């Protein structure tokens, strides 16, 4: 009886160990995945952050955007976020080679904002930079822009 108990414990321990080592598998769409992050921006009054993802050659891909809004405070000359106040994630959007998707994020009373684009299902062979980040003034003019690598 005692030996059976010991054997059961050993078996349980073995299964537990195997479960920690087993790779976790999640159902993912076919193709490569990339996340494009703008980083955190503290915008001027009325300015918006715009992230655009362009479609890639000869393939479809699925794009989803996530916006994060922060509040923060300054101490000793360093401003630091104190809270993530709000976060929203768009519905997945499929874009073709000649299509694009973009999202705007204004601060809207918060102190800072950040956008992430989650790209899934890219099966193309080309590696290109096809994300554009812009800061738009309240009158619609472009204050600054640059190209972001997609990392695909």
């Amino acid at each position: 009886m005692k030996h059976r108990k010991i054997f059961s414990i050993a078996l349980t321990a073995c299964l537990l160990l195997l479960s920690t080592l087993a790779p976790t598998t999640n159902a993912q769409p076919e193709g490569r995945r990339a996340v494009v992050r703008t980083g955190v921006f503290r915008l001027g009054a009325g300015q918006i952050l715009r992230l655009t993802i362009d479609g890639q050659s000869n393939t479809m891909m699925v794009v989803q955007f996530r916006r994060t809004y922060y509040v923060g405070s300054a101490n000793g000359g360093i401003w630091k976020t104190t809270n993530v106040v709000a976060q929203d994630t768009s519905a997945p959007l499929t874009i073709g080679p000649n299509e694009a998707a973009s999202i705007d994020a204004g601060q809207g009373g918060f102190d800072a904002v950040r956008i992430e684009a989650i790209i899934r299902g890219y099966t193309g062979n080309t590696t290109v930079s096809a994300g554009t980040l812009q800061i738009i003034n309240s009158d619609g003019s472009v204050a600054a822009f640059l190209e972001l690598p997609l990392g695909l």
Partner: protein
Amino acid sequence: MKCKVRNSIAIALGALMAVMMFVLTAPAQHPKRKPIADIGVTLGPNQILRLVGDWNGDGVADIQFRQAVYVQGGVNNGVYKLMLTSQSTSQTVTLMPGEAASIDIPSNGFGVRAIVLSDKPDLHVNAMIVDAPTGNIIGMLVGG
């Protein structure tokens, strides 16, 4: 004899599990803070260099900002030598995942330079030039 073998297996498995748990949970060595971004610009009147670092990895990240101010020295065939007039390093700020910290460096000389120090080389850093009277961003650089 059979019981001894089972006991031995149990002990061996227990020991193996203890070792694995130790390996999986052993705290990593705390790396030193190193420069992860270094940006120098000349600013116009009422312009600010703003750096923002945000952390989205595992665990916590330390961040520190170092700033240096330069004035123009002698000129030789159109090339100015810039001389350091002041330099300071901020307190260390600890960021949890999802947090950010930033510093505004005003235009107090010909040029300013900002260095971001962190123990996490993959901490994301953005740099931007801000028009001080309006607070509007007029230029930016996005780090990795």
